[in-house]
C-alpha cells in the first residue's frame, strides 16, 4: 500500500511525451501543450495564489506601524484571558469534532445498522446552519429563562443544578455541533476509499470491528482526519458570531473590539497577524508530520458487500449515538427556528424571498464550480511539480480560511481599491472592480480554497506515483493523465470539496456584504440584517432556507458516493 518516494523523483525528470496523435484541434493542442509545459506550472500556481498573497500582505503590513496605545491596553487587560479562552476553545472543539466526526463517519461508511442510509446524509445537515444561528437557538433553549430550565423549575422548583450555558462547555458544544460535519465528510471519504481490502484484511486477521477500526482504518485515514480537523481549527479561530452570542472572549473578539470599538484597524490587523502566524505554525507542523508517510491505495473502493454488520447491543448503540447527535445538531435548532418562523410565514414567503433563494443558489453553484476547478488544478500542479515556488503557492492559497471573514474582506479590498485608483489614473474604466460578481468570486476563492483543496489533495494521495509512470509510458500526456487517470480516482474528493464549498459560500457573510452589487441579497445577508436588529423571529425563515438549500448538494453527494463509484 505504500510506495517509496523514489519514483516521484524519476517522474520529475521525465521529459514530456509529445502528443501529436491526440491533438484534435489547435485549441485543444494548445491547452495540452500548456499543460505539459512544466515550467509554466509554478508560474500559473503563483498567479492563482496572488489574490490571497495580496490580502494577507495587506494584513501583515500593519505590523510595520504598531499601535502601541491600543495594544498595550489589550495586553494588560484582555489578551491573557482571550489567549487562554482561544486555546481552550480551539482544542476543545477540535477534539469533540474529531471524535464525533470520525466515529460517525466510520459507522456510516463501514458498518451496517438500522437507519444507516438516513443518517449518512442527515448527519451532514448541521453544516448548513450558520454558527451564530445555532448558538442563538441553543442559548435560547437552555439558558435560565429558556423553556428547558423553566420547565425544570416548574417541576422541581429550582434549576440551579443546571449547568450554565454561558460557559466554555456551552460554546464548545455549539461550535462542535456545527463543525463536526467537516471532519465527518472528509473522514467518511477516507474510509470509503480505503476499500474493501483493508476491511477484509481486518476480518481475515479475526479483528473485531472496533479493533479493526483502531488498528487498520484509523491509521490509514490519518491525513484525511487531520485535514478535516485543521479546517475545524481554522473555522474556530476565525469565528466571531458564535463566541459573541456566548460573550466568550477570544482573539477574534479582540480584533473586533480594536477595530469597531477602539477605532483602531491597525491594532485589529496586528492581532489578526498573530492569529495568522499561529495558523502557519500549525500547518507547518502538520506538513512535517505528514511528509514521512504515504497513503496510496488501490482504486477498488467499493464497499457494498463487505460492511461490518453490527449485532445486538452494538447495533442499537450505533443508532442511539447517531440519533443523539442528529437530535442536538439538527432537530433541536431547526424546530426552534421553525417555531419562530411559523407566525410570519404568510407575510415573509413572498417573491423577494424566492429571489434571495435564487441568488444564494446561483452564487453558491457558480463559486463552487470555479473553486473546485481551481483547487483541482492546484492539487494537480502540486503533484507534478514539487518545486519551492509551487509549494509556496499552494500553502499560501489555503491560508485565507484562517482569518476572520471581515478581516480578510478588508485585506482583499485594499489591493482592489489600489488597482482601481491606478486604472482610473491611467484613464482605464474600472467599474468592474466594484460590486461585481467577478470580485465576489475571486474573494470567495481566496477564502475557501483550503476547504476545497484539502479533500482533493487527500484523494490524490491515493494515486501511487507509479500509476503516473504507467500512464506516461502508455503515451498519455498531462491533460489526459488528469482526465483519464486522476479524475476517476479523485472525483470523490472533488464532490466532497464541492459540498463543503457550496455550504460555506451559502453561509458566508462579510465578503458577501462587502463585494455584492447594489440590491443583491443572499439568505445569509437576510439572516444577518434581521438578527443584527434582534429580529430573530423573522431571521428564522431565511436561516431555515439556508439549511434546506444546503440539503440539495448533500443529498446529491451521498447518493453518488454510496452507490460505490
Amino acid at each position, binding site marked *: 500500500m505504500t510506495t517509496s518516494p523514489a519514483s516521484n523523483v524519476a517522474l520529475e525528470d521525465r521529459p514530456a511525451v509529445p502528443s501529436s496523435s491526440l491533438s484534435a484541434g489547435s485549441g485543444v493542442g494548445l491547452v495540452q501543450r500548456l499543460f505539459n509545459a512544466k515550467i509554466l506550472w509554478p508560474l500559473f500556481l503563483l498567479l492563482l495564489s496572488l489574490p490571497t498573497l495580496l490580502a494577507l500582505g495587506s494584513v501583515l503590513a500593519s505590523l510595520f506601524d504598531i499601535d502601541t496605545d491600543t495594544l498595550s491596553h489589550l495586553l494588560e487587560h484582555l489578551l491573557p484571558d482571550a489567549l487562554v479562552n482561544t486555546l481552550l476553545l480551539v482544542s476543545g472543539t477540535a477534539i469533540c469534532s474529531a471524535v464525533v466526526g470520525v466515529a460517525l463517519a466510520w459507522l456510516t461508511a463501514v458498518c451496517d445498522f438500522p437507519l444507516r442510509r438516513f443518517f449518512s446524509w442527515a448527519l451532514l445537515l448541521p453544516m448548513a446552519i450558520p454558527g451564530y444561528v445555532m448558538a442563538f437557538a441553543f442559548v435560547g433553549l437552555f439558558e435560565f*429563562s429558556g423553556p428547558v*430550565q423553566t420547565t425544570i423549575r416548574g417541576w422541581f422548583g429550582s434549576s440551579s443544578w443546571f449547568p450554565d450555558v454561558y460557559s466554555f462547555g456551552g460554546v464548545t458544544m455549539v461550535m462542535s455541533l456545527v463543525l463536526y460535519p467537516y471532519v465527518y465528510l472528509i473522514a467518511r471519504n477516507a474510509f470509503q476509499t480505503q476499500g474493501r481490502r483493508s476491511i477484509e484484511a481486518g476480518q481475515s486477521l479475526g479483528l473485531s470491528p472496533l479493533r479493526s477500526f483502531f488498528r487498520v482504518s484509523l491509521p490509514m485515514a490519518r491525513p484525511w482526519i487531520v485535514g478535516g480537523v485543521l479546517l475545524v481549527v481554522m473555522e474556530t479561530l476565525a469565528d466571531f458570531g458564535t463566541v459573541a452570542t456566548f460573550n466568550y472572549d477570544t482573539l477574534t473578539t479582540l480584533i473586533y473590539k480594536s477595530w469597531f470599538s477602539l477605532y483602531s484597524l491597525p491594532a485589529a490587523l496586528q492581532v489578526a497577524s498573530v492569529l495568522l502566524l499561529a495558523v502557519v505554525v500549525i500547518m507547518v507542523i502538520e506538513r512535517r508530520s505528514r511528509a514521512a508517510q504515504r497513503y496510496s491505495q488501490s482504486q477498488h473502493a467499493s464497499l457494498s458487500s463487505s460492511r461490518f454488520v453490527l449485532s445486538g447491543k452494538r447495533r442499537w448503540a450505533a443508532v442511539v449515538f447517531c440519533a443523539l447527535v442528529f437530535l442536538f445538531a439538527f432537530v433541536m435548532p431547526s424546530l426552534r427556528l421553525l417555531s419562530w418562523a411559523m407566525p410570519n410565514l404568510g407575510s415573509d414567503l413572498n417573491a423577494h424571498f424566492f429571489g434571495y433563494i435564487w441568488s444564494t443558489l446561483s452564487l453558491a453553484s*457558480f463559486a463552487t464550480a470555479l473553486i473546485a476547478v481551481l483547487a483541482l488544478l492546484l492539487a494537480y500542479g502540486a503533484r507534478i511539480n514539487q518545486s519551492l515556488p509551487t509549494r509556496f503557492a499552494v500553502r499560501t492559497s489555503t491560508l485565507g480560511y484562517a482569518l476572520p471573514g471581515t478581516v480578510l474582506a478588508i485585506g482583499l479590498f485594499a489591493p482592489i481599491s489600489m488597482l*482601481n485608483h491606478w486604472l482610473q489614473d491611467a484613464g482605464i474604466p474600472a467599474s468592474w472592480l466594484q460590486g461585481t460578481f467577478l470580485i465576489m468570486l475571486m474573494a470567495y476563492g481566496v477564502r475557501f480554497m483550503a476547504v476545497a483543496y484539502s479533500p482533493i489533495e487527500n484523494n490524490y494521495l491515493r494515486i501511487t506515483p507509479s500509476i503516473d509512470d504507467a500512464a506516461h509510458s502508455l503515451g498519455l500526456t498531462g491533460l489526459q493523465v488528469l482526465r483519464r487517470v486522476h479524475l476517476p480516482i479523485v472525483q470523490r474528493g472533488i464532490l466532497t470539496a464541492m459540498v463543503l464549498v457550496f455550504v460555506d459560500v451559502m453561509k458566508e457573510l462579510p465578503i458577501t456584504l462587502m463585494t455584492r452589487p447594489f440590491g443583491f441579497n443572499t439568505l445569509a445577508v437576510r439572516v444577518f*440584517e*434581521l438578527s443584527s436588529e434582534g429580529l430573530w423571529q423573522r431571521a428564522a425563515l431565511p436561516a431555515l432556507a439556508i439549511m434546506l438549500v444546503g440539503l440539495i448538494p448533500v443529498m446529491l453527494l451521498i447518493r453518488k458516493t454510496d452507490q460505490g463509484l
Partner: protein
Amino acid sequence: MKRATRGLVASLAATLVATVLVGCGKQADESSQQTAQAKPLVVYSSRAEHLIQPVFDLYSQQTGTEIQFITDKAGVLIERLKQEGESTSADVFITVDAGNLGYAAAEGLLLPLQSPVLEANVPAHLRDEQNHWTGLSLRARTIVYSTERVSPEELNTYEALGGDNWEGLLCLRTSKKVYNQSLVAMLIASHGEEKTQQVVEAWVNNLAVAPLSNDTKVMEAIVAGQCDVGIVNTYYYGRLKVKTPDLPLALFWPNQQIEDASSAGVHVNISGAGVLKHSKQAAAAQEFVEWMASDDAQAIFGGVNQEYPINPAIAVDPEVKSWGDFKASELPLSRAYELQPAAVKLMDRAGYR
C-alpha cells in the same frame, strides 16, 4: 458516475451563464435608466435594510430619484470609504450610532453641511458641532424593571444601580455593544473617568449573571426572575411588549430630578447620516438628508422601529407615547465619539465584559 458528474458540471455551467446573463441584463437596464432619469443616489448604511427601505421608497416615490444602497457594519463601511477615496460612488452614509458618524468625520470622510433646514428640525446637541452629520431618530437607553418585585420609587439614576440595594439583582448587556459604550462615554462626560469607573465597578459588583448578549435577553432574564433591573433600549421593550402584552416589566426614566445639566436626563443615542466628501452630487445628497429630517420622513424613519423622532415637534407614535414622557440628556452627542475609546477601556479595567 461519470455521466452524473458531467450532468452536475453542465448544470453548474448553465447556472453560471444564467447568472451572468441576468446580471448583465440588470446592469444594462440600470444604465439605460440612468441616462433617462436623474442619477441615483448611493447610500452606504449600517442601519438594516428593513428599517431604511421604506424611507428610501417614499423618497423615490415623492421625487423620482432612485436610491441604491448597501448595508454592512459601520466600521467596515468607513474603512471601505477610506480605501475608495475619491473614486467612491457613495453619496450618503447612515449609521445607528453617533460614535461611528464621529469616527467617519474624524477620518475626513464627511462634508460639513450649511443647512438651515437641519438647524430648524434637529436640536443642536443631536448634530455634529462642525455640521458633519445629523441625527435622524433618537434611541433612548433606559432602566427596565420587574413590576412584580420592584416599585419605581426604589429607582432613581443609572449611577444608583450600583447601590447596595441592587446587589445580585442587576442584569446588563455586554460592554461590546455600542449602546453601552456611548452610555458610559456620556457618564464620563458628566463625572470624569475616576467617578465613572467607580460607578461601572459598582454595577459589575451588583450583576446577577455575567453580561448577556442582547437587550432582549436582559429583559427575559428579569421576567424569569434571574434579576430585577436592567438597562435597555426602549424599542426592544416595545417589541417584547407586542409579543407578550401582559409583560411583567416596565420602563423607568432615570436622572429626571437632577439639576446639574451635565448629568441630567435619559441617555439617548441617534441613528443619523452625513454627506460624503467625495460625493459627486453633494447638493442632491444634502437635499435627501434634509428630507429625512422633515415631517414626512420622520413619521416613518424612527417609527418603523419604535424609535423617537429627532424633531421634538413631531408627534410620537401612541404606543411609544404610552411608555411615558421623559427628559433626555442634552450633552452634545459628538462627545460620544471622542470618549468612546476611553469608555471601552474603562469598562475593560472595571471588569465589565
